[in-house]
């Protein structure tokens, strides 16, 4: 079969499809979005009636995937690293129920925080949940592991975490496909106790999970993705995991690495292979993308030997993503840095698009807030987070999905006034509705702006569950109808919009303003598509 040129994300999607996937569940989040989009656009998926519609958030996605597994079919759930925080409850408990049909949890981490608020390492979550992790180092492994993760999941009736990082997710290379496997038949879980986590059942399941740990370790010791390459110079051994292996090997193009190398791409950490390296080498350098998980294991609390090198002793930086040069430096090789960047080169941060509806909303909000001073607008996660930057400087917080409304509530409870929340339509249905309910329940004086651009903008314009529903949702939750104000963010409406915001700021209760205008990107795409017709 000819090689396909695929992003790491797309390779995972194709691997899952060829493994007999029946459904993907996901909420968009960089760098994981392209997996679900690939399946949505795949002819193979359409012919197989594979579910691929976006979920409302990562928790609902995870739960739907567990449901599909319960019914005996193979399910993939995809999210960015911080999405796993949202899905943590069903994720942790899915390790206790175990899987029926294959259940693979794909998490795309974002070291260096290219598009994220932290760089948490999802391998810790798998360790926490006591389930296996697979971590591809290249696009071919991404494909193969997506395929094999389903086999592993069904072999041990366990969810499997597949972890990638931004660089691999968004880098393209040739991928060879395997023969496609048919989907599982419907095969509803026959054990009436497996998915009922009453304490009496859960205690039994937990012991079963603990007993599986030895099997997971054996699988990792024997995995084709973990291997030991002998070396002649035993002064140092190198453990390289995931994409870190590529950065290591880049430094030995056309030559051979003189040091023994242990590549780790399947977890739990294969202790026997690690022991071999520690026994035969004077020191060990650990090259891993993300947190120092393996290194921390080896070092231990007391670091008695002092011969484990990596991110914790400064041989490699403690934060940020790796690259070939950082690894070269850790190996004591000369730096190949080219010419410095000329001083005149100015930073070019991302910005709201020309014609973006959020611009008009922020201009109106800033004017209405002028008399109240700075620091009173809580915001959320989406394109509108860019409103924190000049020239708007309109918002003062961004913590997690949905936090704008509840943080505004907490600040109002503390006596701050006025308290304004700014949240996007998709973020609102992701995690803002329960926050709003908290405020309604106590009639907390907050003014919530739900910026309705009819899409999930930041990740490239995916359909939003909120489409056409914001007003009714707010009404249904209990916001007084006269305090749900729909406005159109356009320059010509500026004065009227400022007036509406001022009126609602003066109201001593929950009010919602919905600036409604389609994202300029999806609008222009839609117009182009229409013109073609």
């Amino acid at each position: 079969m000819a090689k396909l040129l695929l992003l790491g994300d797309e390779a995972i999607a194709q691997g899952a499809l060829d493994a007999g996937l029946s459904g993907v569940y996901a909420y968009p989040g960089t760098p994981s979005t392209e997996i679900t989009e690939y399946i949505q656009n795949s002819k193979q998926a359409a012919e197989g009636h594979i579910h691929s519609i976006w979920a409302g958030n990562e928790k609902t996605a995870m739960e739907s995937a567990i449901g599909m597994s319960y019914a005996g079919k193979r399910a993939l759930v995809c999210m960015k690293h911080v999405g796993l925080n949202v899905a943590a409850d069903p994720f942790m408990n899915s390790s206790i129920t175990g899987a029926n049909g294959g259940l693979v949890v794909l998490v795309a981490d974002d070291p260096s925080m290219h598009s994220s608020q932290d760089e948490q390492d999802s391998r810790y979550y798998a360790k926490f949940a006591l389930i296996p992790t697979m971590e591809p180092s290249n696009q071919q492994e991404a494909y193969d592991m997506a395929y094999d993760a389903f086999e592993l999941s069904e072999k041990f009736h366990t969810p499997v975490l597949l972890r990638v990082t931004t660089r691999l997710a968004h880098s393209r290379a040739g991928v060879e496909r395997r023969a496609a496997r048919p989907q599982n038949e419907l095969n509803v879980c026959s054990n009436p106790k497996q998915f009922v986590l009453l304490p009496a059942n859960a205690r039994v399941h937990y012991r079963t999970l603990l007993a599986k740990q030895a099997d997971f370790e054996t699988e990792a010791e024997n995995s084709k993705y973990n291997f030991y390459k002998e070396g002649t110079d035993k002064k140092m051994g190198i453990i390289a995991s995931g994409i870190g292996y590529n950065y290591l090997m880049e430094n030995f193009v056309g030559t051979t690495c003189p040091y023994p190398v242990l590549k780790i791409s399947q977890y739990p950490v294969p202790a026997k292979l690690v022991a071999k390296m520690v026994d035969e080498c004077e020191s060990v350098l650990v090259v891993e993308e993300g947190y120092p998980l393996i290194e921390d294991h080896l070092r231990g609390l007391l670091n008695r030997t002092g011969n484990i090198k990596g991110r914790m002793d400064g041989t490699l930086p403690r934060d940020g993503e790796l690259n070939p040069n950082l690894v070269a430096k850790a190996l004591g090789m000369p730096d190949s840095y080219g010419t410095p960047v000329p001083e005149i080169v100015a930073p070019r941060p991302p910005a709201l698009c020309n014609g973006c509806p959020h611009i008009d909303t922020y201009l109106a909000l800033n004017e209405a807030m002028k008399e109240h001073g700075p620091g009173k607008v809580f915001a959320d996660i989406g394109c509108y987070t860019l409103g924190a930057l000049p020239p708007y400087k309109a918002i003062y917080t961004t913590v997690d999905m949905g936090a704008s409304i509840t943080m505004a509530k907490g600040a109002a409870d503390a006596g701050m006034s006025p308290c304004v929340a700014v949240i996007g339509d998709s973020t609102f249905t992701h995690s803002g509705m329960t926050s709003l309910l908290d405020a309604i329940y106590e009639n907390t004086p907050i003014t919530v702006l739900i910026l309705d651009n009819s899409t999930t903008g930041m990740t490239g314009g995916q359909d939003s569950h909120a489409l056409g529903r914001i007003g009714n949702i707010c009404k249904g939750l209990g916001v007084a109808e006269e305090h749900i104000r729909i406005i159109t963010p356009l320059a010509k409406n500026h004065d009227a919009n400022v007036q509406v915001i001022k009126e609602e700021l003066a109201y001593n209760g929950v009010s919602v303003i919905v600036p409604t205008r389609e994202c300029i990107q999806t609008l222009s795409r839609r117009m182009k598509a229409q013109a073609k017709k």
Partner: protein
Amino acid sequence: MKIDIILAGVGGQGILSIASTIGVAAVKKGLYLKQAEVHGMSQRGGDVQSHFRLADYEIASDLIPMGKADLIIAVEPMESLRYLPWLAKDGWVITNDQPFINIPNYPDEAALKAELDKLPNKVVINADQIAKDLGSARSANMVILGAAAPFLKMEYAEIEDAVRTIFARKGDAVVNTNLACLKAGYDFAQKNQ
């Protein structure tokens, strides 16, 4: 044989169309390829770059090591300078000379020109004007690709072929316009190295 290219521009300028064209040509030749792209937040008018690697052996890293890039291909002049730490000592910079100004502290024209003049190996081209003169302002990227063509270690015909493949869906007129833009860039580079 290997060729490592940093593609540079501003989010929305479509640097990936250059990458996919070279990619098509490379795949036809049976070369190994890796291409790291920028998706997500920076796409909103921020600086974007792509690491594009071709070789006749399996490529290890998705990122080009600093000081090892053979080429910087930029669709914006200031952005061509941002990636100089990646450029090899004997590497070439191929860049559009038309600034994209969406920040208040964009350097002034003379200072920018002075920095570009300092580069030992460069092709600086007004791709926007050339594309406009050929009737397709949107094809400036193909002019830049043409200007980079002499440095790609491929036959010019192989790149032409890739342009045909990429635009075939859009009909002969579009194919021919893009080929003309490619040629104009190529001719300019041959004369102005």
